[in-house]
């Protein structure tokens, strides 16, 4: 029996998609996007790692260059600077601890009314001794002026000796001892 050939040019009618058909199509589409994004993230992460590694190498080279430049200064120049620093610090300390008697000496001699008298001024640390031979009123005057001066923190007559004939003349040998309020040098300018 001859078979009849039937040509059906109509598009086959598919059954209407069910809920799960739609769900499957959606999941498939979204899964492609998700996988693509994941792969892109991986690519970006590795590219970023390569960039920071390159930066790290460049920074290491810069550090090595700086250290080699500093090596010259560390061995050749820094010892000179350190020596000057220490020397300067020592010098300033020595200077500040040094004694200064010029003003006190000038002041003492400014109080001496009789320049021709026998007078010895001795100074050591913060102590000044004035050994002289003069009229007692002059001695008293000198003592008063020294006590009134801010340069001296204490003044006293250590010794006063008069011989018999000197009593009549009101003259005698004396030793005045004064303690300096400050005998250190001022800071260096």
């Amino acid at each position: 029996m001859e078979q009849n050939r039937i040509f059906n040019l109509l598009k086959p009618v598919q059954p209407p998609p069910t809920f799960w058909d739609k769900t499957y199509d959606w999941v498939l589409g979204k899964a492609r996007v998700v996988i693509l994004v994941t792969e892109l993230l991986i690519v970006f992460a590795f590219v970023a790692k390569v960039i920071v590694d390159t930066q790290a190498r460049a920074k290491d080279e810069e550090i090595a260059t700086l250290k080699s430049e500093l090596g010259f200064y560390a061995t050749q120049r820094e010892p000179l600077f350190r020596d000057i620093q220490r020397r300067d610090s020592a010098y300033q300390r020595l200077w500040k601890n040094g004694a200064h008697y010029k003003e006190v000496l000038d002041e003492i001699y400014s109080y001496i009314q009789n320049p021709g008298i026998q007078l010895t001024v001795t100074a050591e640390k913060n102590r000044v001794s004035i050994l002289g031979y003069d009229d007692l009123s002059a001695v008293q005057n000198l003592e008063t002026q020294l006590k009134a001066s801010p340069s001296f923190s204490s003044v006293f007559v250590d010794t006063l000796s008069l011989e018999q004939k000197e009593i009549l003349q009101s003259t005698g040998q004396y030793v005045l001892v004064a303690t300096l309020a400050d005998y250190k040098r001022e800071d260096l300018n």
Partner: protein
Amino acid sequence: MPPGYRNVNKRLNDLLSTSQSKSYFVGAVTVVFIVIMAMVGILPAYSAFTFQNEENAKRDEVIAKLTTKLQISQTLSKEYDSKIDVVNYFKEIFPDNPDQNGIITLLNDIALSNSSFLSKLSFNKNPSVLFAQSGYEEQIKSQQVSITVEGSQSALQNIVNDIESSRRMLNILNFTLDRKTAEDIATQDGISHGEYVLNVQMEYYYYTNLTSTDTL
């Protein structure tokens, strides 16, 4: 085709025969893929990136410090070279060795500039008690020097001032300013160096260098 393989294939086909099971399968495969990629790809790369970033930040700090130090060293070096005269003068007034000749010259010049006569000068290599008790660092050394100068009262007072203000660092330990007696003046055989005598005991200092190089 081996029978086992045909069974697995048939079972897989049965499993994926419906849209529901296909949806679940695709979803599961996607999730598994994301988890695996995150664990073996993204997270290690990210942690390596952040670690290297932190290390780079530390390198930046080191570079900043080294750059600053280099700039300071260069500036100091230029300043040192430009003020080498000042440096040399400073080393002259605070030398490495005792330099007794320099002290003699200085004190003689001070006496002469004040029209006075330096009649006596002596050195004592031992440091003073005051110096020994001061606790200065090991590099600072001192020697004592004593002088006797004859001149006028004002001149000798100026000498005290010149000694104290000398940059050579002469520290007066004690002094005596005395007026000569008539007998003292009379025994000078007509040679008068002034009516006053100044005796000064002082010490001067010098700075010895360290034996080893001291660097940062």
